[in-house]
């Protein structure tokens, strides 16, 4: 029996997992269209490689990775590209992003593809295949997997495979482990190879006995050496990478530190599964398992093509009419989708249909009485009550002193708060304000440098001009000295004075004219588009200012944009 470690705090919210685990994973119906965002991963947005009107095949790259940290995006089925434009995407900001819309032709016709034997292929090729197949972390972080499968800098001892799935309602990894355990483990074996890791520890919360049994069976059947399936206690947020690493290995990875520096790498079980499909069969990441649950007739897990509109997906689970919003992710950390029209992305592990009955609006927040229930449950061992206090009065420097950026936004603090304070909203607000200010100060720094350079340049030009003048004068003096007629020179003297005065007058007049003519003109001749942009920017600034002043108000949470 392996000794497990503990992380500080944690909570036990009702799990609500049974609803969606009664039936096996179902294939979701072919949607009427696919809205595929080109930015479904951490890093640079993929660059479109197709044109509107072009026919694409299933598995064809429609967005190629751009730069080192990026990932490919594919057509999830065969069909015709109907649009490449900005659309609302599955992100809580509600901001539009570049998407490719495909109208499926129903043939589901594959592009030619083939895999390799991972034991034969060089590691660089395997990593390249992961990148080209668009494999990213499916636990929610969507970090490109090829970038995580290096081990040259740090020696990796342990590969942690995360099947904990600690958030309530979500069961996509549970079902995947029950049904496709052997492919998950083979994928883990590939990743272990890539990392030269000594062992693979598979952490699964002990409220998933079927998944644990299936995975253990698969380890035995396929005779995986160096692999161990470990049941970890059910305790939210035990499925956070850092918490699971802590529980399995005892190692604490601080914020801003890569786990590889401590000899551990962590992948989600679904990522391992996709890595296996990508390398052995050449199948890119085209679909994922999505739990559809909450206010539905029959909660279930679906295998869903990426880009499937959320409202078409939830209809298949029988979304009830009083549903008022769709939550992507779990009830603790999930985000409200801006609309049901957005497409399912690589990060969409769960859609909870929410109704006022299922998730009643939170009770009004009361003052914090510093009871420290929040500190007792904080897995990052922060002092949430202090962070709240400083975020509320917008003392952002202090929030950073109290390690605001170590907050993983798990929401355990808000869950236990007897005053119903939406604590995480305060932390997100403080973080975004700090980011905003850093950007502003960087911009100011650039502006300052430019200004200083300009002063330097003006000074230099002045000096150069003075030098030139001095030389000219010298030359003139030399010429004068060379002139032989002193009489003419005296006669000319008064004359010269006059002409000099005239020249000065003329120059002053010219300068005045110039000054009159050089009013700033760059805001007079704006196009309608530019004017609209300016208005929009000013409106946004006003909104931010208003938000900031609202946040200072007594017990009102800051409004998230």
């Amino acid at each position, binding site marked *: 029996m392996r000794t497990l470690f503990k992380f500080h705090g944690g909570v036990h919210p009702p799990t609500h997992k049974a609803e969606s685990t009664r039936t096996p994973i179902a294939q979701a119906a072919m949607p009427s269209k696919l809205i595929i965002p080109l930015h479904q991963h951490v890093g640079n947005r993929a660059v479109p490689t197709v044109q509107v009107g072009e026919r694409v095949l299933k598995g064809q790259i429609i967005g190629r990775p751009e730069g080192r940290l990026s990932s490919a995006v594919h057509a999830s089925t065969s069909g015709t590209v109907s649009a490449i434009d900005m659309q609302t995407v599955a992100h809580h900001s509600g901001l539009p992003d570049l998407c490719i819309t495909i109208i499926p032709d129903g043939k589901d016709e594959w592009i030619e593809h083939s895999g390799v034997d991972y034991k034969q292929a060089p590691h660089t090729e395997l990593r390249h295949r992961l990148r080209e197949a668009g494999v990213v972390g499916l636990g929610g972080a969507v970090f490109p997997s090829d970038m995580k499968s290096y081990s040259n800098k740090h020696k990796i001892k342990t590969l942690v495979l995360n099947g904990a799935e600690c958030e309530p309602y979500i069961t996509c990894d549970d079902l995947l482990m029950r049904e496709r355990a052997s492919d998950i483990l083979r994928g883990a074996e590939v990743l272990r190879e890539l990392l030269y890791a000594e062992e693979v520890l598979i952490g699964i919360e002990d409220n998933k006995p079927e998944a644990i049994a299936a995975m253990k069976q698969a380890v035995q059947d396929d005779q995986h050496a160096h692999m161990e399936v470990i049941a970890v206690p059910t305790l939210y947020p035990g499925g956070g990478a850092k918490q699971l690493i802590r529980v399995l290995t005892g190692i*604490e990875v601080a914020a801003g530190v890569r786990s590889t520096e401590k000899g551990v790498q962590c992948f989600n079980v679904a990522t391992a599964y996709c890595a296996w499909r990508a390398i052995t069969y050449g199948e890119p990441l085209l679909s994922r398992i999505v739990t559809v649950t909450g206010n539905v007739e029959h909660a279930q897990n679906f295998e869903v093509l990426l880009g499937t509109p959320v409202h078409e997906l939830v209809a298949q689970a029988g979304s009830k009419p009083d549903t008022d919003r769709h939550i992507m992710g779990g009830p603790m950390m999930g985000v409200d989708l801006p609309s049901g029209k957005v497409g399912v992305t690589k990060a969409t592990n769960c859609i909870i249909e929410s109704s006022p009955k299922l998730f009643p609006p939170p009770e009004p927040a*009361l003052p914090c009485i510093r009871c420290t229930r929040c500190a007792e449950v904080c897995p990052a061992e922060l002092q949430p009550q202090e962070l709240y206090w400083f975020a509320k009065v917008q003392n952002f420097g202090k929030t950073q002193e109290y390690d605001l950026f170590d907050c993983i936004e798990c929401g355990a603090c808000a869950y236990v708060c007897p005053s119903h304070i939406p604590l995480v909203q305060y932390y997100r607000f403080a973080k975004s304000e700090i980011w905003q200010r850093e950007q502003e100060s960087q911009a100011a720094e650039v502006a300052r440098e430019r200004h200083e350079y300009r002063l330097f340049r003006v000074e230099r030009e002045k000096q150069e001009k003075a030098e030139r003048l001095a030389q000219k004068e010298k030359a003139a003096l030399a010429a004068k000295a060379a002139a032989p007629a002193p009489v003419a020179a005296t006669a000319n003297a008064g004359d010269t004075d006059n002409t000099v005065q005239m020249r000065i007058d003329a120059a002053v007049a010219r300068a005045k004219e110039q000054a009159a003519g050089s009013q700033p003109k760059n805001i007079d001749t704006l196009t309608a588009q530019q004017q609209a942009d300016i208005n929009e920017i000013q409106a946004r600034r006003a909104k931010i200012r208003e938000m900031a002043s609202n946040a200072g108000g007594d017990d009102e949470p800051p409004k998230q944009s």
Partner: protein
Amino acid sequence: MLRVLIALIPGIAAYVWYFGPAILVSITLASITALLTEAVMLKLRQRPLKPFLSDNSALITAWLLALSIPALAPWWMVVVGTAFGIAIAKHLYGGLGNNPFNPAMIGYAVLIISFPAHMTHWLTPNMLDGHALTFAEQLNYIFNGVLPAGSTLDAVTMATPLDTLKTQLHLGLSVNDIREMPIYGHLAGKGSEMVALGFAIGGIYLLATRVINWVVPLVYLGSLFVIAGLFHQANPAHYVAPLFHWFSGAAMLGAFFIYTDPVGGPTTFKGRLIYAFGAALLTYLIRTFGGFPDGVAFAALLMNICVPLIDTWTQPKVFGKKGGGQ
């Protein structure tokens, strides 16, 4: 916070049993004053009434204040103390959650400094012979300041056991001689020791239901015991035994109901250790060497002042940053 009120009931019951129902009058009076003051202040601060009047925090202040002052205190003293605590110590600092000092202890401090004479007239427990006042007589004194004919204030009240101890020690008596006096029982003062026991029972209920954290009560009582024990060992004739300190004055009330007030208390584990130890040390020093009969309230206020500093000093290291690697 309803549970805190429930937890006070055993102590109050003992109070009524040994000293008559006068305490219920002052508790009622303080409660009404607290709710009225709270409502007026909320109105002035343009805050909603309902959530703040129904959170019981004003009632806790009222009950704690009423229990800290003599039950026979004139009605206006109860009103002044409570109103001052709620209006000045609580609302002028920003209301619930923002008050650096415990409002009940501020109310107590105002009264003991302004009206020291009234604050020494504690009811004599009714098992001591003398003329125990009837409820009607108690009421008549609280509201009209009139005692029954032939009775004097000195006949029906006395100094607290702690106060008596201090006075008698000054007169040169030894602890053992003083403890022979009829006002003392097994642990401390007759009657009042049972009230303290009632508060301890309520405190254990609060610990069991996890309404309060265990660190402060445990460390406070432990430190008080050790400090008193050391002095007692050094000179038993001059320094009374630790148990006497536990069951005298407001030690039990402080340990479970006053120092555990989260608003003015520290939030870190180490901070709570320091806070509770400091409170115990100050309690002992004020009781033994100071000019006031009890030190619990002043210890609370003095430690409240230190809380921001204590909290800043004792910030724990966060996940992954504790040093020492694993």
